[in-house]
Structure formats: structure tokens, C-alpha cells
């Protein structure tokens, strides 16, 4: 067990935060657990080195996002899944109700590509800059900006009722 010194404590301390990010990425509690678990199991053999590098959380987060994006690319396991909910309701719900707004946002996020979800979560949940997001996703800053615009445009198209939520993000997207 000595090889994994500090890993258990890391999972206890940072696991909830990783699960929250994974939940936003996958839109499903089971898949979120699966994503976090599989990411940590993959990094565990290198744990000593990761700790030695000085910022294990940054490393794990990067691995998490890449596992999400690349896992979907390889296996399609985070693709769209059947849902009992009708995607188009014909009228827009009352987004003043936070609970309804959260449901609608979750449903819309699930219909984005994994990379678009990853970009939105990094930019607007974790408050990362475009440069930081590019480093984490191993792509160019230009790709991050274009993906962000596409993701926001798709959200507006899918759920016009979220417009007021997205009104002030255009400027931020170029940061």
C-alpha cells in the first residue's frame, strides 16, 4: 500500500469536487462515479510521481477531462442516451424557478458533445481562462474559444428559455 501514500486522503478530500465536475460532464450520477473512479485508477500507478510534481489535483483534473473526452471518442459511452423526458416541450418552462432551470440546463448539457460540455464546465463552472482550458484539454486556445461559442449557441438553440442565463457570457467566452 505504501506506493499509494496519500491517494486515499486525496480521494476523501478531493473526491467530492471531482464527482461534481464529473456529474456536470456526464449528466448522470453512475457515469460520474465511473468516470472519477476510472480516472483515479489510471493515475494511481504514477501517484508518487504525480505528488512529487507538486500539484496532484491539477494532474487528476486534467486526466479526468481527457478521460471524459477521449473515453467518449473511443467507446461512445458518454454519448446521448435514451431518456423518458421529451426533449422539446412546446413551451418554455418558468426559468425563474431555480429547480426547473437546473433541470433544463442539465437536459441541454447532455445534448452537447463531450468536448463542448468539458469546455463549458471548465470555463463557467471552474472559472478557467481560455488558456488554462486549452492546457487542460490539450488543444489550442482557438479551439477552446470556437468550442465555447458553438456550445453556447447550441444551448440557446436547444433551450431558448436559458437565454437570460447566457446573456452575459459572450464577453467572458473570449477571455
Amino acid at each position: 500500500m505504501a506506493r499509494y501514500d496519500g491517494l486515499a486522503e486525496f480521494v476523501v478530500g478531493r473526491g467530492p469536487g471531482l464527482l461534481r465536475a464529473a456529474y456536470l460532464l456526464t449528466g448522470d450520477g453512475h457515469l460520474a462515479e465511473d468516470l472519477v473512479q476510472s480516472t483515479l485508477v489510471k493515475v494511481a500507478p504514477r501517484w508518487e510521481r504525480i505528488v512529487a510534481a507538486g500539484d496532484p489535483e491539477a494532474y487528476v483534473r486534467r486526466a479526468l477531462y481527457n478521460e471524459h473526452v477521449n473515453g467518449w471518442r473511443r467507446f461512445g459511452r458518454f454519448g446521448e442516451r435514451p431518456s423518458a423526458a421529451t426533449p422539446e416541450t412546446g413551451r418554455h418552462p418558468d426559468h425563474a424557478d431555480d429547480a426547473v432551470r437546473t433541470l433544463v440546463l442539465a437536459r441541454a448539457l447532455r445534448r452537447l458533445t463531450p468536448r463542448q460540455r468539458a469546455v463549458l464546465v471548465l470555463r463557467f463552472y471552474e472559472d478557467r481562462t481560455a488558456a488554462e482550458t486549452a492546457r487542460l484539454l490539450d488543444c489550442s486556445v482557438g479551439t477552446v474559444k470556437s468550442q465555447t461559442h458553438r456550445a453556447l449557441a447550441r444551448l440557446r438553440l436547444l433551450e431558448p428559455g436559458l437565454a437570460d442565463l447566457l446573456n452575459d457570457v459572450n464577453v467572458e467566452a473570449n477571455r
Partner: protein
Amino acid sequence: MSARLHEALRDLAEEAPRTDLTDRVLAGARRRRRVRTVAAPVLAAAAAVIVAAGATLAGTTGGTPEPVTPANPPRTGIVNDGPLPPPLPKRHPEAITSAFLDHCKNPGGPNGKTPRGDCAQWRLTDRSGRQWRLSDGTGTYQTRVNDYMNGRGPLEISADGRRLAYYRADEQRFVVRDVPTGRVIPVRYPAPLADLLGNYHDLTFSRDGRYLAVSPDVTTTKRAVLFDTATGAVVPLPDGQLLGIRADGGVALATPRRGDERMRKATTLMLTGPDGRVLSRTTLDPRTELGTTGPALSPDGHTLLVRMKTRSMLDHAFADVRTGKVTRRLRLPEKVAQVAGSPTGWVGPTQVFTGSTKTGRGDASGEGIDGLFRITRSVIDLNTGHETRMQAFTLRANQIAFVSGGYLR
């Protein structure tokens, strides 16, 4: 930042499951490490060159131990705050219950700054709480590759605390030391220092301390072996995750199916005889998985502690290693489920011993690992979930390695 979108995402993220994944992660990592499917001769050869060129040993002073003068308990109540304890005397009548490395409390742990000298040796605690150093064993050794990758000599304490298994760098071999008599039994298993680089070796005693399994890492082609301390015999073991050693020297192992290295779909259980030959193979009940990172085999030699594949981390079961079938389901109380599911050893047929580690300030708040480690040694009754605390103490370090044993009298 868009405050409204951020707030909405934060609200959504709060719906994430609050599952503690620690047990699953460690079990998965250990499976990946223990299941030997990859050979890396190139790595091994490179490692040998690097060690020959630049290995620096720490924690091996050799020679005759100094006279016994147990260190005074430190005033802070933190066991490694006081002066370094003396070496373990050649003959010591009391059982050893814990061993730890604090890596000389270096910032960044062993990789931040190389631990050197006596403080890099394994520290031992006996049943009375007195401390010693294991001066003839290897605690931390350093082999720099691109400014990282240190190694550690593994150490194991038998269930009764009367035997220690560890690596002697001077002799480049594993040894078993009988603590009360001082007798040292060399393990006939090739273990040059180069093999320890990047290839962590698991050492596992049988319940009575007679047998020692040496299981190298997944990245080597070396076979796992079972060493008989009474006869000196060494028996090669089949590849697989060691679940426990039976009283007669047979072992229980788990192996994955091809393409299912994490044993998510099916797990094959094997029993070997004392000669290492496979006596039986069966498939573990697919409703269950090996959740444990410790010995899953109870002292009766055929009952396995497994976890049910349910949403709840509390659902466990006993399964028969000979048939793979569930014999009894268990639901453990939440506060003990995680540690009981990964025991260090077994006190009785339904009682497990655990040595758990928790960080104090620092890690949970995300401020880094610097801080205090609280070690708790407990016995947990799997039938009732009742926890009996045997000992608890605190270490101050940036990073620790910790081994627990000596739980049987």
C-alpha cells in the same frame, strides 16, 4: 465570469452523488498493479543500469545495534515529534504492532528531498508504544531518474507481531526476522536492488507467520513465490491477485478474464496446494466483486469477504472460494464499511483487523498534504458492525508509509 451561469452549474453540480470512492479506487489500483499481465524487460534493463550508476542507499547502517534505550514519549502526543528512537535490539520480547516511514518529514515527501540517514529507516512501534528503528533494513532508497522516482523497501509485520519481513540492501534480498529470538531467515528469492526500482513487492505473511508470499509488481516478469520459513522451500505461484494464504501453505488467488483486467465482469478464483499447483478453479458469483484491498480470505481458509455490486457501499457478502457462491450477505454500518471492507487481517472467522489512516488539517481542505496523520487500529465484527479500537496515534509528516500488524496475541 458569468455569475448566473456559474451559479446554475453549481446548483446542478450539487446533485452529484456523494459516494466515497476511496475503497473502489484503491481496490482498482491494486488490481491493476497485482494482476501481472505486462512484461517490461526493457524497463528492467534500464533500471539496472541506473541503479548501478547512481543508487544511494539510506536507512542501512548495518553493524551491531546500540544498547536499548527506548525514546521517551514526545510531549506533543505525536509519536514522531521526539528524538529518533534507538535501533531494534537483536532480541526483543515484545510484539511489533506498527511500522512507518515519515521520510525525515521532508517537504514534498520522499520525492521532494531524499530522506537520508537514520531517519529514513523504518520506525517500529511495539505493543507498549515504545519506538525503535529497523537499522538493518532498507527504509527509503533513492534512485534518481529525471529527478524523480524514489523507492521504498517493503515491510510486513506478522499477525502476532513476532515476525518482520523486509528488504536488506546490504545482502540485496528479503529476509524474515524473528523478533524475540533475533533469528534472521533469508528468503531464497532473487531480489537485486534494481528489481525494487519501479517494481513494488508485496509481502504477505500467513496467519501464523510461517509462510511469506512475495508478489512483485505488474511490470516485471518475475513470478510471485511462497516462502516456507520452516523448511526454506520456495514455491512459485500462479499469476493473480493474492487473496490469502491457508494454514497448509496453499493460497487463494483471483485472476481476471482476458479483456477484463479490472475484473468487472467475471473473476476466476483459484486454490493452490502447498506445492503451488492449482487444485481448483471456479468463477466468483457475478453479483459480487472483490472489493477488498487487503486479505479477503478468512482464517477458515475458504470464506471470502466480497462486496455486492449494488449502489450501496455497505452491501458485502461471504462467498466460498471453492464454489464462488455467496454463502451469506452482510450489510455493514456506514461508519465502518470502508475500512472493514479492506481489512489488514483477520482476528477471527467474522472479525477483521483494520489499520486506517486519516489526515488531519490540510488535505481535506485542499491546502496540501502537509499536516497530521491519525492512525487508528481497530477490530470490527462483521456480524454486528461493532468496532473495538485497539490503539490510535498521530504522526506529523508531509507523507507517510504505514504498516500495521501484531493484532493477535
